[in-house]
């Protein structure tokens, strides 16, 4: 999966390992009267696995949508690769190397696994639509190059057997894997995973954990993930941020967060 077309730093400069890749400051987001996120600040360091956890409706997915530019917060700033802005835009996020998967798998159901992952390469295609339609010369060579990247991803995720199967026919666990593949095809700098293990059995979860750890180790990809399975979160992540009712209530290493009284109250409920 080595990049033959290196992602250009479109937005700003490179960030060193351990440096702050992305920071959100005082972000608030409301839909009409519903305040989904209230003044949340945290950062994601390059090369780490950062988990975002919290009870249902805590604002986790909203937070990911803010980072990927899908939602535009009313207040606060987002700093990505040293560039501070009021809000993110989806195309800037994608160009800047932010890839994501969705809570309810968002693949092209009628297309094969291969084609779905190929769509992840769209931004790296240099030739125009017409050239690709004619499938000639440089466009053909380019497609072969991209196909190789995609095949490496297929090999990596061990989904060779469903290469040509329409994803709509696949079980949920495999669809999740295909979606991860599509995100990886962007060769992302920051990978956002929204509940990558939801609805999986133990074995599928273990596989997914292995993939996530290998992605981090092999490609130095920074990963932010939302997950409900606490054992997964505690095993995988370097740091955890906990949201509840749109507020950040804790931030730290898994063990710190685990012993935090506010977190325990948020999960177990407390008399107000």
């Amino acid at each position, binding site marked *: 999966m080595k990049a033959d077309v290196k992602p250009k730093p479109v937005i700003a400069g490179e960030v060193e390992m351990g440096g702050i890749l992305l920071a959100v400051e005082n972000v608030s987001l409301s839909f009409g009267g519903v305040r989904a996120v209230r003044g949340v600040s945290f950062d994601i360091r390059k090369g780490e696995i950062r988990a975002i956890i919290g009870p249902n409706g805590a604002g986790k997915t909203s937070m990911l949508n803010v980072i990927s530019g899908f939602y535009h917060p009313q207040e606060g700033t987002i700093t990505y690769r040293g560039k501070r802005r009021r809000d993110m835009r989806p195309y800037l996020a994608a160009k800047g190397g932010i890839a994501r998967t969705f809570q309810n798998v968002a693949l092209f159901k009628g297309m094969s696994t291969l084609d779905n992952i190929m769509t992840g390469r769209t931004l790296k295609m240099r030739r125009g639509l017409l050239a690709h339609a004619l499938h000639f010369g440089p466009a053909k060579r380019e497609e072969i190059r991209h196909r190789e990247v995609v*095949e*490496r991803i*297929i*090999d990596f995720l061990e989904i*060779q*057997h469903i290469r040509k199967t329409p994803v709509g026919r696949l079980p949920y666990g495999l669809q999740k894997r295909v979606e991860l593949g599509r995100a990886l095809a962007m060769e992302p700098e920051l990978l956002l995973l929204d509940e990558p293990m939801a609805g999986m059995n133990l074995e599928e979860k273990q596989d997914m954990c*292995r993939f996530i750890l*290998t992605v981090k180790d092999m490609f130095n990809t920074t990963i932010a993930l939302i997950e409900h399975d606490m054992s997964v979160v505690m095993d995988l992540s370097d740091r955890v941020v906990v949201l509840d009712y749109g507020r950040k209530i804790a931030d730290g290493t898994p063990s710190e967060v685990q012993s935090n009284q506010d977190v325990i109250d948020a999960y177990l409920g407390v008399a107000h």
Partner: protein
Amino acid sequence: MNGSIPVSAAPDTALDTVPKLLLRNAAHYGERPALRHKDLGIWQTWTWAQLKHEVRAFAIGLRKLGLTRGDAVAIIGDNRPRLYASFAAVQSLGGIAVPVYQDSVAEEMAYVLDHAEAKFAVVQDQEQVDKLISISDRLPRLHMVIYEEERGLAGYDHTSLYAFEHVEELGRRELRDNVDTAGWWLEEIAKGRGADVSVMLYTSGTTGRPKGVMLTHENIVVSAQNGNRFDNFTPSDTLLAYLPMAWVGDHIFSYGQAFAGAMCVACPESPETIIEDRREIAPTYFFAPPRVYENLLTQIMVRMQDASRLKQRMFAYFLKVARHSGERILNGQPVGFKERLLYRLGDICVYAPLRNRMGFSKIRVAYTAGEAIGPDLFRFYRGLGVNLKQLYGQTEASVYITLQPDGEVYADSVGKPGPDVEITIADSGEVLYRSPGVFLKYFKNEEATRVIKTADGWVHTGDAGFIDQHGHLKIIDRINDVGRLNNGALFAPKYLENKMKFYPEVREAVAFGHGRDYVTMFINIDLTSVGSWAERNNVAYASYQELAAHPQVYDMVLKRLDEVNRQLAEEPQMAASQIRRFLILHKELDADDGEMTRTQKVRRSTVAERYSSLIAALYDGSTHRHVTTEVTFEDGRRGMVEGDLSIADVPTYEVRAAEPPREAAE
């Protein structure tokens, strides 16, 4: 370059080891494909010349890392070209290859590697490396692990861990730096003798620890050459390697025979893609245990149910045609012009597309072995024009004991002794054999060797069998399970039970007869199959018990037993085992009640104990017996099942003289 290869010549001392075969293939068939592997979605090919270079580089790399003559090297992973190359590389230096089942847990692996005294391990990927690391403190002799796939291993401590490429690179550098190296390697190969041990295969024994079966180069080479000669394999034949490398069958077919016959071996992309890969490769030679053929057929039947009406009817019609004349055409027997024409039409419309779906479009020979295959299943494939045959073999025999020659194929026998194989039946009914493939001994287990192998080279198979009227061997049961009726006749429960279990209505059957006057049987009906019959025939039932006790169900089973008795009457050795009385059990035999193992095998003694009153009823002439049985439900609660069971008699037949062979083409 399709010319025949000098395999039919008398055993050639110049070609008495597998690495020597490699050199010959590289010289004579250098440009022909030796191995293929689908990687990144594309089939990659190694020619024999390329394979030789790969083997040479890896062997010299191993040498640099300290491999010497007689060292054992464990090889663990899915079927991959580089792992097959490792066999040849290790053997070229006089080492002993020890393939290990890739799905064994660390515990089993620790035993095998420790027992085999493995010094090196060549493994496929991180999974296997992890297992070896977890047991490394128990393997003081293992001093180096070489892996093929790097994924996930980047962060590992590499003091005793090498990448396959790295070892090859060591070898290539040595070849560049030292001009004598290539010659030295050829000398090392020349030093090899047919009597040297080439491979140790650990048998997964059902009892006790696995035993290391030591096979020599001669065992492998001669068995492979005989196998090739038997079915006329040439360098243009192709096979798909997908069964575990640690299993003797794969070692003989995909390694021994492929090297002896310069055939091409294709390795699937991953264990999940085998069906698709087989379709793309279209092997000419294929081996599978019966369940693989069964699964293939089930898949087809399930998909046919979604097909259009027209297709379904066409399918049903031409299957009937295939059943009627397909096998006779395959056997080369006389078949009428009209039937031939119909079959031809069926071939265009149904059989050829079906064969293509299954990856059998170029198949010349397909084998099945390991357990009894259902006659309907067997005839289905033969009817489609797939030359499916049976063989009988063992690790200790380098596979081949008996095979079915073309034109002499029966669903219920395992064939005639292979080339150079002698067979004899002991008084106990046990099958013994002697052949050039007979193993040297069990590694570090003289006692077990003495039990199995006699001083003059006969080997006990542990199976009971007899030679039938066609001169074919029939395996009836494990010798330990075979008993005697009071009149001294052989009683082989599994043989009888299998005959019944091949009927879709019967799920389980348990035969009794050892130390009795006649044979009786417990039957478990198959709820799905009989249930759907009940639905179609308006038979109302509320439970398994009620359906099982239904008189019409009794009649149905009785008819099947009657058919079995007719068949038994035709076999002089088995005629005394005709089933006289039976009953259908009021509950399904269940692993939760200890009546079956978790792998769905009947625990005969437990069943006999739990239902001793029923067995007594089978032999005391009563027609009804009231019974109460304790059962364990899936959630662990216990309860009682009781009921009145009827016991029915089955007509038996006089022993008939052996009929002339009906299906055989002489």
